């Protein structure tokens, strides 16, 4: 995995004309944003954060998408457990 990461960083740096350190920085920012979204949406879906606060932190689109996903997963699991 470490070798694969190094290879990918090198490939991205070459293709984009960036130093490898900047590729790492961007990867960290992007990864951190995903983890942040997961945390906020989990807190909202678990009832630990109200809807407006969740929207303030990750945006309406992501909150609405999570709500739709929740409906779908609940419908699907319920169907699977009763089919």
């Amino acid at each position, binding site marked *: 995995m470490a070798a694969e990461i190094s290879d990918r960083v090198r490939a991205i740096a070459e293709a984009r004309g960036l130093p490898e350190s900047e590729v790492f920085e961007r990867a960290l920012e992007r990864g951190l944003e995903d983890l942040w979204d997961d945390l906020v949406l989990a807190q909202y879906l678990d009832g630990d954060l109200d809807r407006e606060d969740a929207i303030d932190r990750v945006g309406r689109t992501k909150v609405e998408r999570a709500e739709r996903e929740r409906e779908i*997963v609940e419908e*699907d*699991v319920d*169907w*699977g457990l009763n089919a």
Partner: protein
Amino acid sequence: MTLAAVSDAGPLIHLAEIDALELLAAFDTLLIPETVYAEVETGGIPDGLSDRSYELVDAAARPVPSTELDAGERAALAVATDYDVTFLTDDLAAREAASEAGVDVHGSIGIIALGYHRGMLHREQAASLMHALQQETSLFVTRAIVERGIRQLDESHRTDD
């Protein structure tokens, strides 16, 4: 209860990615439109698919009008309507089109829950596959949602006890 379904490419690809195509055996009848098969074939037919029992069907005669759906999704929805079977898709737009058309529609997470319900998977296997679906496939679903799905499995288990 007899189960019959038609799948678009999504569940076939996603279940193959987590090595879980055997769960399709939960369906007594599985239909795959030729258009969908061709789409899956483009990426290489998954190893496990040839071990499964399915029927290739031609849906070209009755296309479903929708600009949002691709050819495979339109074909699968047309077959679901014609044959009155469950439509399996992981695509949100296809799912909404199916619901609007009154077609029973479910996705890969539902298939995992079905496999658990039918005794093909233990609780840990079902939870692990749900996590894998979120982490290892191109299916877009938030981790928090998957955790909720797993809790639903646990709740049903406790209810059964």
